[in-house]
């Protein structure tokens, strides 16, 4: 929550700094993207299925033609059901169908740098995000849940493109790839590594 607060404060500070850039678009933009995420590393030991249940949304405040800062959140759910198997536990065994879920809600501060001028037909950019993520680990043995909630640091570099719907249009198509890392440890997971593809829209609003 702290990072959310800091992000908001940062944004308010940026508003105060509003200077006379020759901008084509209003400085504040919002984006909403649909996300597909692929687990990597030890997260694959927990669930190796690609997640098609996710979205991400953010606010960016453009300090100038190139640089913007903002805030990003979202949701991603990893889900995998394993057929009945016998698991060895301390002093015994459990025969169960395991359903493994991990729900991730990050709240990250972002910095983006655009690699082309705002009047370009395609505006590539690179970005970096850091903050905290809520990790909800829930492993079901049959109908019985083994659940752990935790907040953990997360960092997420990003490359992407914005394609305006016409020159100077406040509406842009957005596509990006993010790699997210978190030193998250839970049972078989020793760290959280995910590559995520997002497509959506960005709208300059203010």
């Amino acid at each position, binding site marked *: 929550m702290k990072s959310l607060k800091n992000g908001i404060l940062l944004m308010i500070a940026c508003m105060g700094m509003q200077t006379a850039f020759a901008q084509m678009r209003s400085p504040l933009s919002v984006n909403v993207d649909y996300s597909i995420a692929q687990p990597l590393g030890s997260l694959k030991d927990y669930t190796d299925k690609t997640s098609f249940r996710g979205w991400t*949304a953010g606010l960016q405040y453009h300090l100038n033609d190139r640089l913007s800062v903002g805030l990003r959140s979202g949701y991603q759910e990893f889900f995998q059901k394993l057929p009945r198997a016998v698991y060895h536990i*301390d002093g015994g065994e*459990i025969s169960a169908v395991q359903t493994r879920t991990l729900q991730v*809600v990050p709240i990250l501060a972002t910095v983006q740098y655009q690699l082309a001028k705002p009047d370009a037909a395609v505006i590539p950019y690179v970005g970096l995000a850091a903050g905290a993520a809520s990790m909800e680990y829930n492993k079901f043995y*049959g109908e019985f849940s083994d659940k752990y909630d935790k907040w953990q640091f997360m960092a997420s570099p990003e490359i992407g493109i914005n394609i305006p719907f016409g020159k100077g249009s406040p509406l842009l198509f957005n596509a990006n790839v993010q790699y997210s890392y978190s030193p998250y440890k839970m049972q078989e997971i020793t760290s959280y590594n995910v590559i995520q593809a997002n497509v959506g829209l960005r709208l300059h609003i203010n």
Partner: protein
Amino acid sequence: MKRVMYLMSAMLGLAVSISSCSKDPLKNMTDEESRIYVTNRADSVDFTSYKTFSIADSVAVISNSGKDERALTDYDKKLIADVSAAMVAKGYTLVGKSAKPDLAVNLTRIDNTYSAIYYDPGYWSGIGGYYDPFYWGYPGYGYYWPSYYQVYQRERAVSIDLIDLKNPKNNELVAIWNAMLRGSGVWDIANVDSMVTAVFAQSAYLTTSK
């Protein structure tokens, strides 16, 4: 600024509404998938040191509604028959309880459906009235539930217990193995075969041959 705040609350609303449509693992789960079969054993026990067993002639039914009883429904008869057959298949010899069996098999159906009271080993002393150690020829004894008996649940369940009758300790009969059947349909007669097969299959150490 007002607009930003408005936008942010809209985003938050969106976040909450979308995340609430996360996949519910309990939906689309069949009864078979919902069930778990847990076995616990005493690590220090050599299961090959036992040769004979006897099994209770009925199934204890304990519930939080206070109507504890011993029952012999068709389900109970099938459970007794299946567990006996599984023990015999593991190499143990079924004898009458008067023939000084090495092991006693207690069968219990637990119904905690209507309350959130945890059923833990401490509560098991309550079975004494149904499987009083007197039943096994040990008047005045109690049961000892070792720490590996980590049994907690709040729903219908079935418990199969192996009690060591050869080595009572401090006036207590020690439980050396437990199988706990949990989930939907554990009281359904159609599932007895597969459940009993599963718990004995996953306990490879439970055998008379080394």
